[in-house]
């Protein structure tokens, strides 16, 4: 059954990818959707089996590498952590598959799109079901590839191509870190199977190594490199620049890969490696710092963006920051819980945004929207649900997970706990602000679109709305239904040792005023944003006018792209063009191929001219040859 679960998407991808042209659009969509739906049904069954009945499985597919001490298997390893990821991946993927049937209805390359989606699903399943670092790395790179293919799906758009390349290259930085982490693990533990590595880690606590002139404990080095990998994939600050640009891909891709699943792989990695991270308080602190900073900085940028998908992308970035600092505080289960709930409401928001974009005939700028909530009531109400869940409106799923994170930060003794809790509350407020800004700018106010008349704005077909409905159900109830298992009274039995806690995890309940602080701020943000973005836009404009430098700073995304452009891209281009023009062109080509061919050509011309056709020339050459040889004989 687990085999079916993992390999059905691959089979679907293969069939549709190779034969999609002959099968036609309808059959291709049918195959991929049905296979992934079966897969998601199986994963729900496995989830109940593993999580509720506390079973674990380790199925060996076949031996992959046996080389000296390195023994690796392709395997399907299922514990509670994996099964949670399985549910998230396959269910969101299945809904996105179905949604794509409607969303991509005008696209000529449907089979290719569906094939890529299924391929992505398979790679993600490989990643989460791995029992060793190499298979995880395989899945890690596989989802990176699928992400690249899907961001650049509309390959005729130059912006999509450059976004795809950017995503790939920035991820490479993270992957490099992950690879080094894995090398270190193999060098010092002699294995890269999770079980063996986790067993060996406690014996290496005192080991110090020196790298790049820095001497520190081995565990810290391993953790920092693994975390760099996680940062790349999960778009944390410094390595986040690819995620907003990745919105160039079709919206279902954004929902599946860049919100619900792939970008959470970094969180998954940290949680999966909790038996390593737990021994490095130093790196955990760094994770808290990076996570909290990301949450804050992405939230501030989200406040001023005008592209509907970019707002949600920065929101994703910000929420991933929450997950990381939860993990950094040692609350791995809460991080995963937030990952779980986030998958539902963020996918809902993205798909809802897709529905809006569809309604406006591919318009993404929120300033060209507005006033349409009556025309698209279903999308509107579903988006409201998503927004409420995201902002942590009481008793929706985001409320349980996000507040648990903030409470953890409050009660934690970690070095950066104070920083984290401040940022957590502040970012929750900002989240609410920009989310409602999105709703108000998109659906309320006056109709601002010049390309399409108000009457032409249409509701999306049922095939797009039904998946939204399922996600909305998840966004409403997932938090309440699973909070006891994930983070509540039963969390020890539920996780069943798939997460490692060095010290027993205890959550002190904060005072009541603190508990009420976040929800009140969140609720306050609603009228506030209504006032600024619908009621009285002039006061907003004057506010922007006053704080112009700050506004520019945010609109330009903290100038990260410009900074990287200056620091890395331009020098790299200069070095590249130096090596190309001078190194390759002038030196290598000049003296090598081009120079040689020129030389040979001129020699050849000489030789041909030499062949004059005159008999006495020929005889002369013979005699010259004769005298050369005779002279040689006399001298030597």
């Amino acid at each position, binding site marked *: 059954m687990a085999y079916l679960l993992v390999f059905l998407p691959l089979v679907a991808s293969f069939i549709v990818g190779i034969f999609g042209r002959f099968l036609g659009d309808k059959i291709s969509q049918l195959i991929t959707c049905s296979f992934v739906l079966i897969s998601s049904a199986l994963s729900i069954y496995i989830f109940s089996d593993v999580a509720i009945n506390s079973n674990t499985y380790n199925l060996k597919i076949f031996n992959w590498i046996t080389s000296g001490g390195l023994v690796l298997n392709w395997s399907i390893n299922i514990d509670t952590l994996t099964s949670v990821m399985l549910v998230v991946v396959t269910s969101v993927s299945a809904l996105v598959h179905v949604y794509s049937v409607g969303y991509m209805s005008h696209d000529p390359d449907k089979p290719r799109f569906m094939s890529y989606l299924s391929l992505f699903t398979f790679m993600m399943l490989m990643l989460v079901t791995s029992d060793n670092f190499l298979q995880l790395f395989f899945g890690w790179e596989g989802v990176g590839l699928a992400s690249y293919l899907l961001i650049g799906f509309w390959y005729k758009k130059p912006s999509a191509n450059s976004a795809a390349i950017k995503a790939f290259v920035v991820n490479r930085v993270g992957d490099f870190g992950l690879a080094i982490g894995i090398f270190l693990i193999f060098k010092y533990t002699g294995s890269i199977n999770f079980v063996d590595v986790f067993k060996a880690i406690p014996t290496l606590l005192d080991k110090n190594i020196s790298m790049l002139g820095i001497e520190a404990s081995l565990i810290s080095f391993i953790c920092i490199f693994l975390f760099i990998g996680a940062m790349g994939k999960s778009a944390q600050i410094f390595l986040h620049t690819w995620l907003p640009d990745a919105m160039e891909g079709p919206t279902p891709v954004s929902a599946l890969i860049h919100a619900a699943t792939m970008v959470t792989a970094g969180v998954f990695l940290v949680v999966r490696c909790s038996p390593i991270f737990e021994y490095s308080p130093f790196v955990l602190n760094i994770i808290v710092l990076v996570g909290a900073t990301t949450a804050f900085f992405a939230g501030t940028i989200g406040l001023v963006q005008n592209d509907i998908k970019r707002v949600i992308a920065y929101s994703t970035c910000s929420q991933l920051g929450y997950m990381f600092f939860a993990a950094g505080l040692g609350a791995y289960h809460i991080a995963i819980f937030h990952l779980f709930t986030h998958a539902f409401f963020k996918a809902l928001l993205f798909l809802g945004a897709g529905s809006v974009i569809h309604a406006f005939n591919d318009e993404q700028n929120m300033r060209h929207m507005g006033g349409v909530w009556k025309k698209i009531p279903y999308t509107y109400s579903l988006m409201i649900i998503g927004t409420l869940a995201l902002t942590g409106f009481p008793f929706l799923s985001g409320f349980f997970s996000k507040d648990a994170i903030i409470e953890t930060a409050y009660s934690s003794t970690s070095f950066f706990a104070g920083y984290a809790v401040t940022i957590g509350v502040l970012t929750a407020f900002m989240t609410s602000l920009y989310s409602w800004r999105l709703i108000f700018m998109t659906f309320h106010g006056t109709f601002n679109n010049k390309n399409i008349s108000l009457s032409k704005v249409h509701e999306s077909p049922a095939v797009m709305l039904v998946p939204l409905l399922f996600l909305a159900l998840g966004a409403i109830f997932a938090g309440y239904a699973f909070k006891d298992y994930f983070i509540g009274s039963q969390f020890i039995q539920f996780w069943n040792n798939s997460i490692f806690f060095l010290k027993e995890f205890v959550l002190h309940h904060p005072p009541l005023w603190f508990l009420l602080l976040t929800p009140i701020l969140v609720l306050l943000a609603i009228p506030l944003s209504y006032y600024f973005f619908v009621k009285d836009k002039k006061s907003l404009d004057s506010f922007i006018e006053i704080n112009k430098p700050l506004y520019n700073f945010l609109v330009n995304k903290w100038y990260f792209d410009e900074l990287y452009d200056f620091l890395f891209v331009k020098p790299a281009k200069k070095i590249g063009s130096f090596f190309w023009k001078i190194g390759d062109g002038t030196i290598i080509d000049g003296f090598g191929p081009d120079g040689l061919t020129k030389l040979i050509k001129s020699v050849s011309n000489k030789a041909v001219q030499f062949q004059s056709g005159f008999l006495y020339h020929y005889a002369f050459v*013979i005699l010259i040859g004769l005298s050369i040889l005779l002279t040689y004989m006399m001298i*030597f």
Partner: protein
Amino acid sequence: MENINFIYPEIFIAISILGLLMVGVFKTNSFNLVTKLTSFMFLITIPIVFLNSTVSMKLFSNNYIVDELSSFLKILILGSSAFALFFTDQYIKKNKLDKFEYPVLITTAILGMFVMVSSNNLIGLYLGIELQSLSLYVLASLNRDSTKSTEAGVKYFVLGALSSGLLLYGCSLVYGFTGSTNYYVIAENFSADNIALLFGLVFILIGLAFKISAVPFHMWTPDVYEGAPTSVTAFFALAPKVAGFGAIIRILYIAFGNVFDEWQSILIFISVASMILGAVAAIGQTNIKRLMAYSSISHMGYGLAGLATGINEGVTASVIYIFLYVVMNIGSFACILIMKRKDIYLENIRDLSGLSKNHPLVAFCLTVMLFSLAGIPPLAGFFAKFYIFMAVVKADLIILAVIGLVTSVISAFYYLRIIKIMYFDPEQEKFDPISSKGVKISLALSTLLILFYFLNPSILNFFVNLASKSVQ
């Protein structure tokens, strides 16, 4: 006289020449008949040579040798000449060359070559060379109505006379200082301290190098190849090279075997010069016959590189090389003879453009030949070069091997250029349908041999090993 049966092949050919002349003189329009008789004579001679192929006999007071090497080369000479006669029949008739002297001259040339490869005596060598050369001079100018052909004949004759003079002068020097023309006696009396003897050696080597068109004694080759009728050019590219090689091997390894150090550097010089010039000068050619001339110059360079090693492997490699060179040239010239539109034979490389569309099979065969000439695995030409380089490296002549490799890369350019023209350039009018059976059979046989040589290279290598042992 009791051993006279070992020179039956030579005697048979000599008598046949007289007979063929009689037939030709007394019968009008006898070209067809004489050609048939000649072919028949070849067919009989090959088994006669073959009968003696495993013996090693010294005849006429050690002045004439019949051994494995000479038998192998003789069979190669006969076989290649037979092909050269066989696949040119159409061409000869179309160009009104069908005079009975044509096959007779080829036969006399063959007799000369037989003497060249078997002679163990300077006089014998000279006689063989002259008999061969005089026949070739006439053959080159056979198309006497064509200025090009007569020019080629005259040039060849004058330069050939010059080289013969050099050769003879060398012979006289060697004779004067060693007191004999017999190779064995020369070897005994040859002293490296005697500068006159070394001069003699150089003169003799130059005379022989001229015959196999090695640089810088190659100047006649492109002009003669281009000017002579294609059928004659094909013959020039085949048998005389084999004979020249046979003579060089015998004189270097037997008569001058003791002074290896003296002639090695000369051979290396000639070899390197041939490889480089053959590779470089061919690039500028537009006439395919001229191109083949330069190609053969460069291949002679590789063959000489094998001989320059002075070790058994080197001689073996050279003989294998010359054998495969002959096979590749048979195939290539068969393709050149196909280049005919409206009954006019074409010689420009551009005429091949788009051949792959009109005659895919011919294009494929020519591609195989050219790839093999360029030395691309797994074709036979690769092995030929491979053996040479192996031997050269074994003899510690690394620089020679490197130059050989570099020039083979350069020469790959012009072979590949022809392939590019055939496959990627716009197609032209079709060639005339191939009516000659000889061309078809020669092309098919040589392509098959080149293509599948790699399956069992040891068959050829076995015979060549036997042959090359006889000069050690």
